[in-house]
Structure formats: C-alpha cells, structure tokens
C-alpha cells in the first residue's frame, strides 16, 4: 500500500471514529498508532505509547495551559464574571440594546483573564443570558451575542489556543499574546457595532443611566483589570516568562478571591478540580494529535502536500485563501484546539515558505478557527450555550450568531489586507 493511500485511509478512519463519539484525542491516537504501524510495523508503533504520551504530559512548555485555565475558573468562581456584566450594564445599559453591548464587553473582560472560548461562552451564558431574557431580548439575539462574544476567549490574551500554536511552531508565546490584543479590541468594537446596527430594532429601549451607579460598578471590576494588566505587562516587558506569568496569574486570582471573601478552602479545591478536568481534556487531544502527527510525518504526506500547494501556482494570497478555506470547512466539524494541533504542523511550512509572518498567521488562524466555534453543524460555543440554556434550540442560536459570522469575515479580510494591525504592538517588544 502506498503512503498516500495509508494517509487517506487514516483520515477516513479518524472521521469515522469521531462521528461515533470516540473522544477526539483517542481517535487521533488510535489512528496514529494504526497508521504508523501500517508503515513501520505494529510492534514499534505500539512502542510510541511508551514514549510520546509521557513526553506530552510532562512537557514544561505546556504547563501554562492548566495555569491559564485555572485562572479563568478561579475568576468565575469568585464572581468576577457577574461583576464584569454589572459594570458593563451600568455603563452601556443606557443605549438601546445596552444589555447586548454589556454582554460583549463582559465577554471581552472575561476573555482577558480566561484562556478558553468555550469557558467564556459558558460563564457568560450563566451570567448574561438570564438578564437579557428577563429584559425581553429574543433568544436568538441573546444567545448569538454570547456565542460570538465567547470566541474572544482565545483571541484576547491569555489564550490556550495561541499558546498551543506557539508551542507547535516554536514562536514566542508572549509575543503571540501581545499580537492578539489589537485584533481583540477590533473584534469587540465590530461586535458592538453589529448589536447596535443589525439588531437594534429587535431590542428593547435602554435603562436610565446613573453616573454614580456606573462609577460604583467599577469597584467590582478592579480585580480583573489588575490581573490582566499584571499578567500582560509582565509578559510585554519581559519581567517573567509566559509560564511564570500564567502561574502567577492563577495564584493572584486565588489570593484576590480569598482576600475578598469570595473564595474559601472548599471552593478553591473545587476550582482546582474543575481546572484539572478541563486541562486533562485538552491534554488528551494533545496526546492524540502528537501520535497522529508522527503518523503523518512518517508517511511524508505533509511534505508532499506542501509541495503540491506551492506548485499549484495560485500565488501567495491564493494559497493562503486555500488554507483558510480548508480550516473553515474543517471548522464546521472539528474542535478548534484539535484543528490547530492537527493542521498547523502541515500548513505552517507552506506559510513560512511563502514569506508570511508566523506571528501574524497565528492570529489569523486563531480567528479562523474561532469562526468554527460558531458555525453549524458543530459549533462548540453554540453547543455549550445550548447545554446550559437547553430551552433555546441549536438552530435558534445558530440563526442569532449569523450576523457575527459575517462581521468576523470582514475582520479577517481587514487583518489580511493590513497585517500592521496585528504586528505593530508586538514589534514594540524587545
């Protein structure tokens, strides 16, 4: 059997296993072992299991993932997400659709201390959806806003997905985080614009604005601001490494929570358990994707694919569009993290070969997989919202999120046309 055939068979088997609910990481791992075995022999392939999974779970460079997850969980459990929403409501609630604007703002604020999009969407559903519901927002609009706002979790730093991208491509994770800031702010502005322009007629009048209440609401969010500034500035100015910043961020979040009486020993322990569960789920995908990656490497199909894409002769941007289209299509079915781990090692050599900036591409590709989180049929953000607010059907949420998908595409085009929007801030780092 030729290597191309084995690789194709591997992808078919992978999608078949995933379709019948085999955990994505396990499916990738099994197909990886099986495919490696088909090329090299089953004995050596099984021996991969003695080496690779242990290397993955004991890799120091990956330890920042559980820390950033923990920081987000601690922030949620100490009530920071509600405070963000209250502050957003106090300042933006006066506009028509103000609660929607407040939700986008709270999502952005929460994204600044949480590295995961699904977690951002889940948290904000619990905080913002009931408020919008009782204010008379249609379900499609309120859940659509949260699903889209949730995607900010992996764009605004810290970001687990950007960290994994940096790990795979050996790019500085701190630089990647800083590169996500301006595109993140741009996303917030465009989402708010969408709420104001597209949905305004479907939304109720704003509430009465009280300057005093607005100022008072800021007392609740100082902790989030302090944490974000501390973590990002210490990375930006190179005071500590990204891993140390992540650990310190989680540690400080716990300290603030304890000092304010929002956390106690029991809820601290619960937070650790919750963060561990989420992290282990990510590690399983990493373990499987690494094994699958070894399988693809031994078939040498990625190299051939690289050559094929370059030989196509569709030009620098033509190839980029092809790659993004591939990510968008896969994003309809695959988890964001799984897609990054699976596809970035394959397309990254093409990107560098074509002369694109690897930091810029990291932000572009994260924004592309973000879209996958909110597009049907598989959109993790939509699913998690549906699992929490089960009375709102999936088609309703997908309908509500549609205008945000459109504005996301606009944002992608902007950043491809003007890479400086991504790159000027990190260029100020040492």
């Amino acid at each position, binding site marked *: 059997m030729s290597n191309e055939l084995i690789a194709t068979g591997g992808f078919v088997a992978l999608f078949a296993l995933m379709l019948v609910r*085999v955990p994505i990481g396990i499916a990738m791992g099994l197909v990886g072992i099986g495919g490696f075995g088909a090329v090299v022999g089953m004995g050596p392939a099984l021996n991969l*299991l003695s080496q690779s999974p242990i290397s993955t*779970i004991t890799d120091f460079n990956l330890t920042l993932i559980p820390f950033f997850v923990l920081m987000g969980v601690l922030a949620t459990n100490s009530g920071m997400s509600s405070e963000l929403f209250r502050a957003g409501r106090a300042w933006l609630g006066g506009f028509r659709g103000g609660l929607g604007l407040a939700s986008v703002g709270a999502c952005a604020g929460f994204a600044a201390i949480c590295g995961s999009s699904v977690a951002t969407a889940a948290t904000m559903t619990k905080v913002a959806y009931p408020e919008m519901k*009782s204010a008379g927002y249609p379900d499609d609009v309120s859940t659509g806003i949260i699903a889209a706002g949730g995607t900010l979790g992996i764009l605004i730093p810290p970001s687990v997905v950007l960290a994994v991208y940096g790990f795979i491509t050996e790019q500085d994770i701190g630089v990647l985080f800083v590169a996500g800031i301006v595109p993140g702010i741009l996303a917030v502005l465009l989402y708010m614009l969408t709420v104001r322009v597209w949905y305004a007629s479907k939304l109720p009048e704003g509430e009465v604005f009280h300057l005093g209440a607005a100022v008072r609401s800021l007392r609740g969010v100082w902790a989030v601001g302090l944490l974000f500034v501390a973590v990002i500035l210490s990375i930006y100015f190179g005071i500590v490494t990204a891993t140390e910043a992540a*650990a310190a961020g989680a540690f400080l979040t716990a300290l603030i929570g304890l000092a304010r009486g929002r956390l106690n020993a029991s809820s601290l322990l619960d937070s650790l358990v919750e963060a*561990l*569960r989420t992290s282990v789920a990510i590690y399983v995908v990493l373990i499987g994707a690494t094994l699958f990656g070894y399988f693809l490497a031994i078939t040498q199909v990625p190299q051939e694919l690289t050559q094929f894409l370059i030989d196509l002769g569709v030009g620098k941007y033509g190839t980029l569009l092809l790659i993004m289209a591939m990510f968008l299509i896969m994003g309809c*079915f695959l988890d964001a993290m799984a897609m990054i781990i699976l596809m970035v090692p394959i397309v990254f050599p093409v990107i560098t070969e074509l002369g694109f900036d690897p930091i810029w591409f990291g932000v572009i590709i994260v924004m592309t997989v973000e879209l996958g989180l909110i597009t049907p049929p598989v959109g993790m953000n939509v699913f998690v919202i549906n699992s929490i*607010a089960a009375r709102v059907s999936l088609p309703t949420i997908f309908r509500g999120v549609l205008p945000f998908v459109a504005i996301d595409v606009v944002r992608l085009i902007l950043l491809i046309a003007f890479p400086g929007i991504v790159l000027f801030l990190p260029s100020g780092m040492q």
Partner: protein
Amino acid sequence: MTPDRNGAGGALKTVHIIERIAGVMLGLVTVLIVISAIGRYGFARPVPDAFDLSRLVLGVAIAWGLASLGFHGTHIKVDLLAHALPAAARRAINALAWAVLLGFTILLTWKIWERLVSAFYGGDATMDLRLPHWPFILGIWLGLVAALITTALRLWLITARGQDLGEYDGIDEQLEQDLRLK
C-alpha cells in the same frame, strides 16, 4: 448529580477523592512555579529542580485526571450524530465509543508499565538533585490503572443502566425561578 441516579455511589465518591488529590497537585505546581519565579528574580536563587519537579508532578496530576474524565464522560468529542439519534442507537454509540476508549487505556497502561520498568533499571533522574524519575512514572501508571477502572465502570453504566455521556449543569430551573421572582 446524585449518587442514586448514577447507581454507583461508592465509585463516585472514590473518583471525587482522586480528583481532589490531583487538583491539589495542580495547586502545588502553581505555587512551586511562583516560588521559583520569586526566588529566581527576587533573590537570584532558583529553586533546585523546579523545572523537572513541576513538569513531573503535573504529569502525575494529568494522569489521575484521566480517571475523572473516563468516569464523567467529559472528554472532548463530537456529539453531532449522537444528538440526532434515538435513545437506543445513542446508547449503542456511547457503548462503542467508551469501549474504544477502554481499549486505548489498556494499551497505554501496558506500554507505560514497560516504560516504568525501563526507567527503574535505566536510572533516569532529574537534572539538579538527581532524584530518580521512576516514582513519578509509577504515579502516572497508577493514574492510568485508576482510569482503566473508572472507564470500565462508565461503560457498565452505559450498557447496564442506559446512562448517557457528558454531564452539564443546566440553569433552566434556576432561570425559571428568577423569572418568577421578577
């Protein structure tokens, strides 16, 4: 989630304890890295072996976390087809998926046992203090054994008790109450 609904109260308690121990390990690693950073930048005195210890202890915590995921069913997976199927077919799919997971866990446990033996005789050690690696790999292996048991238990709950995979905390009941209060 109540023990009776699960039909495996004792197991639930055990998984609960396992998770808490693993969670505490995650907390310890966080503190270790913070102390190491303070020592390094503040006093030019890094904690010996902070690098190796933090990654090895986290590895043990992750392995024990597998036991939690195998039991609760909260692995990252594609639920698209399962949601579209009637209950009986969904149960068959769940059973198949968890049997595959169990198979993978068995392979992993076997192969990491070989790694444990090799590390025990091979003498692998940490960089600074030359602490042997094998106790950490033993910790990882024990976590896998625990995952083997909890995954098998969940498979039994699916086939014998017809339980589904994945547990979420819905807010609908709370939400209705909130709305009624307004």
